[in-house]
């Protein structure tokens, strides 16, 4: 990689806050601040963490007809989620699927009234943009909003912090989206996140990002948190990291993401199928898949990391899948992981063994999430 690293508009703020910067998806990003991953994680669950997620892709899809319903219908050709029924001011989780039933990215889709806002993973954003543009160009204009920043404020103190900049934020429910002025800056605010905590994700022009971030950091209980804490928080919340827990080789059913396919898009629904790989997904919805993403809790103290092989027996003779994400969960109080196991071994409580440094450590299949979410539904 000889490409110079990109910087978000909050780069100077990160340095000012003493962040340790690391390359991530082509960006120079804060992995942690002086408090450290453990403290930032626990602070987010106890109070509020502020995350720079400006590296993520924001894409505007607008129907040439001017009708958002036409953009929604067009997008349903790429994702199995119900976008047509998504009301203005609401967002939902979706997957881009492939012809063989794999997942090429996961994303959020928001109905902004007369257009759709897609928020996609940083590492996938150029491919996603090309994919959406190629498929929808006849009926829609598709635009990468590269002049937009994105800040997440997550945790129990997030509501008071954001509401102190605009009281209307307090009335929003989980997955609501609204245009709100914060600190005099026009923002797109959604009540959502990637930590399992109540909180907000806030988009604004790059030029105003620092103003909003500083105004939020000035609120009681808000402290910066880096990508390290973001990863352990999302893992405890049972949320997938694209490229680790889901990818081109995993289907929505294998990934235990059936909940992201609403009834209208399932077999027998009003707009069943019609997305890439729909037949494979429909078959798996009916018959199940041969493997499934599960939570895993280690019985001991040794963290079991992504890449560790799983076995059904203590001697490590009978392969039983692979760990895709693992860390010490600061709030779970022990090692937590996710991975794929044969479906007959996917029941919570099933005892498996993870290969770690030549030994086979006992782990138990566990229900996800590891930490109960605190969303304001």
């Amino acid at each position, binding site marked *: 990689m000889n490409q110079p690293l990109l910087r978000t508009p909050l780069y100077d703020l990160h340095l000012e806050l003493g962040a340790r910067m690391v390359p991530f998806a082509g960006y120079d990003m804060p*992995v*942690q601040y002086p408090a*450290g*991953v*453990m*403290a930032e*994680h626990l602070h987010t669950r106890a109070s509020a963490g502020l995350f720079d997620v400006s590296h993520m892709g924001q894409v505007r899809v607008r129907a040439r007809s001017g009708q958002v319903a036409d953009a929604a219908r067009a997008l349903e050709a790429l994702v199995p989620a119900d976008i047509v029924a998504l009301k203005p001011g609401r967002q939902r989780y979706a997957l881009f699927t492939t012809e063989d039933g794999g997942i090429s990215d996961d994303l959020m889709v928001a109905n902004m009234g007369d257009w759709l806002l897609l928020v996609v993973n940083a590492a996938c954003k150029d491919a996603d943009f090309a994919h959406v543009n190629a498929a929808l160009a006849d009926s829609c204009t598709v635009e990468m909003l590269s002049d937009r920043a994105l800040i997440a404020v997550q945790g129990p103190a997030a509501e008071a912090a954001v509401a102190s900049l605009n009281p209307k934020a307090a009335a929003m429910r989980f997955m609501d989206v609204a245009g709100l002025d914060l600190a005099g800056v026009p923002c797109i605010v959604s009540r959502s996140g990637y930590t399992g905590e109540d909180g907000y994700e806030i988009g604004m022009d790059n030029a105003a990002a620092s103003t909003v971030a500083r105004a939020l950091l000035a609120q009681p209980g808000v402290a910066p948190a880096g990508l*390290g804490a973001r*990863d*352990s928080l999302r893992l405890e919340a049972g949320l997938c990291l694209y490229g680790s827990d889901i990818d081109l080789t995993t289907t929505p059913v294998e990934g235990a993401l059936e909940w992201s396919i609403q009834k209208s898009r399932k077999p027998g629904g009003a707009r069943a199928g019609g997305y890439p790989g729909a037949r494979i997904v429909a078959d798996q919805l009916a018959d199940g898949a041969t493997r499934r993403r599960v939570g895993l809790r280690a019985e001991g*103290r*040794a*963290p079991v*990391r992504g890449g560790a092989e799983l076995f059904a027996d203590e001697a490590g003779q009978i392969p039983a899948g692979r760990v895709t994400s693992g*860390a*010490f969960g*600061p709030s779970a109080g022990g*090692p937590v992981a996710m991975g794929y196991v044969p479906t007959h071994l996917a029941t919570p409580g099933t005892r498996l063994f993870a290969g770690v*440094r030549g030994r086979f450590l006992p782990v138990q299949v566990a229900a996800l999430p590891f930490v109960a979410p605190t969303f304001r539904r």
Partner: protein
Amino acid sequence: MTVYYTKEHEWLRVEGDVAVVGITAHAANELGELVFAEARDPGTTVEQGDSVAVVESVKAASDIYAPVTGDVLAFNDALGDDAALVNRDPEGEGWIVRMTVADASQLEGLMDHATYTALVG
């Protein structure tokens, strides 16, 4: 008693042919709060540069390399329940492993305190 340092940010305190090995305050600070530590079993012979122990933070596992060739004598059991002791007292109570020094001439290739301090600034 002499204390030596490696460029992998380990220290070893040598008394006779036995060394106590740990990581420096600089390394402990870089790794962040540790949540787990373990060493190779007592009696294991490790070559200089082999992994002799592992320390883990929330995010990552890091090998501790044997600064010299020798046999593992003991792991610091206090770290079993409290790996963060390494962060609190990296060059004292937070030692990681005790091992023999098979070949004292290997110590000549290591750094003294002043040289190491200059290295990490």
